[in-house]
């Protein structure tokens, strides 16, 4: 079994988001980039399948410039066998999905893992687009996955519960919490990651679907109205007067 894990290179969860003066791009100076946490759920699950002897190969893929290579090396340190970088600026979901689908096509991946969304753009479109482009089944918001016979049994989050899904392989799975526990790479993994293959592939031509024209900050909140413990009732009355409770 071969598994492909899509990795998005995103600002660390503690990043204070600052846009450049022209409002056209994110100010990346001083920002630490990490593996998108949702992608990491899929990555660790893939490695677990490998440890259980069910998968032979776990490949990670990212669309991005040379700056994403440390993020791919971290995925290799966690345990992926090899990495692919599509050498292009990830302009939008359609472009990224087009690159990954083109790379994956015909290579015999049984599972393509991705995250439910990236924590920067929160788009959540890439995995479903890859599935559609490759004409594969797609299980979104997956919280569990087991291999069973020649297929898989998954759990998928829905409003107020979970669906139990049976799927054939190959399948595209977008992951969220529950799929696995994040891992911190150990020293041996970090050493090994330096010599694992990282292939750089030139992009194919894909039309972009959307263009970013700029960024803004959400309107700032007014200041907080405080009550003392003794005035708790006043808080309740304020909420009641606003029609909230």
């Amino acid at each position, binding site marked *: 079994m071969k598994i492909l894990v899509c990795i998005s290179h995103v600002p660390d*969860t*503690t990043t204070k*988001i600052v846009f450049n003066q022209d409002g056209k791009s994110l100010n990346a100076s001083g920002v630490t980039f990490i593996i998108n*946490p*949702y992608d990491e759920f899929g990555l660790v699950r893939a490695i677990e399948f490998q440890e259980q002897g069910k998968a032979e190969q776990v490949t990670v893929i990212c669309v991005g410039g040379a700056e994403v290579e440390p993020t791919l090396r971290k995925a290799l340190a966690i345990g992926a066998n090899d990495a692919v970088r599509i050498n292009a600026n990830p302009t939008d979901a*359609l472009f990224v999905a087009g690159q990954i689908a083109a790379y994956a096509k015909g290579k015999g991946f049984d599972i393509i893992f991705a995250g439910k969304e990236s*924590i920067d753009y*929160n*788009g959540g*479109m890439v*995995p*479903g*687009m890859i*599935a559609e*482009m490759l*004409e594969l*089944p797609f*299980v*979104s*918001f997956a919280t569990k996955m087991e291999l069973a016979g020649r297929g898989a049994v998954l759990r*998928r989050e829905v*409003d*107020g*519960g*979970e*669906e*139990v*899904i*049976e*799927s*054939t392989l190959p*399948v595209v799975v977008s992951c969220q*919490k529950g799929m696995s526990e994040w891992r911190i790479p150990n020293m041996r993994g970090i050493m090994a990651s330096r010599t694992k293959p990282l292939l750089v592939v030139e992009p194919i031509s894909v039309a972009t*679907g*959307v*263009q*970013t*024209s*700029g*960024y*803004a*900050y*959400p309107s700032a*909140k*007014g200041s*907080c*109205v*405080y*009550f*003392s*413990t003794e*005035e*708790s*009732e006043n808080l*309740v009355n*304020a*909420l009641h007067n*606003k029609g*909230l*409770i």
Partner: protein
Amino acid sequence: MVLLFAEYSDGHFKKAVLEAATYASDLAKSLGTTCAAVSVGAVSDEALKTLSHYGVSKVYKIVDAKLDSFTNTAYAAATAAVAIQTNAKAIIFAQTYNGRAVAPRVAIKIDASAYSGVIQLPDTTNGFASLRSAFSGKGIEAIQAGKEKVVITIKTNSYHITANPVDCTLENFAFSPASTSFEAVAKEIVKASEGISLTEAELVVSAGRGMKGPENWGMIEELASLIGAATACSKPTADMGWRPHHEHVGQTGIQIAPNLYIAIGISGAIQHLAGVSSSKTIVVINKDAEAPFFKIADYGIVGDLFEVVPKIIAAIKKIKGKS
């Protein structure tokens, strides 16, 4: 024409779907066209007619026993078939679990620009220029669609439902799903709880590590049930097993935007705020005046939650008793 993906679940159209319906009909109005909906699976005519309250003047019904349970493959194929035949310019989805699974497939099928997290009507003077929420609520991205058609999902609780009654006709639309549409199918649904679903809740009472232990959650549940709120929690309390995982909100949990979010004994770490900062009104109860949560709060009480929460419960009982 603007087309709404009229997702029907648990016997009704969820609030998010009605928001999307309002958005779709307002968009149709601004484009000088009409708003139609596509309904996939068995939904009563009576239920479908209710969409007319929100400006939907036509519903394309696709009924087939094979479509009674949801698969993103078949539902996307059905929606795309209607979109192509009606030459829809924009396909509007509520940003629900199923909407988000179907939308990207439809976008590829009909060669549309696709984007999620939309918070406002677009400027359509020159193509589609939209605003969407990004960076977990920490930024707003302005985008321009590159293609003639768009597929968009509307961020929950960011567009107001307004009544806009119109005449509405229902039409059966012939569609039969391909056999390859059933490679991934739901065998069973496991309900998480009887309570109010978090993503839909208007009011949410949430608590964190300040609660000291799971045995103290009785008052949180009492408060929530008094005001008809859903309960939520911070990540560590779910990780420690104090609370069920499906209650975990934040960057790595569920993202919510209720009208009222009451945070009790939660510090307001940036990853927590990423999931709740879009809430309309935020109340913070924390004994530490320096807790970062106060920076985005509308109302705050600096105090011991074990004293404050019982007082709040008593005050609510007083109000409820009167009315």
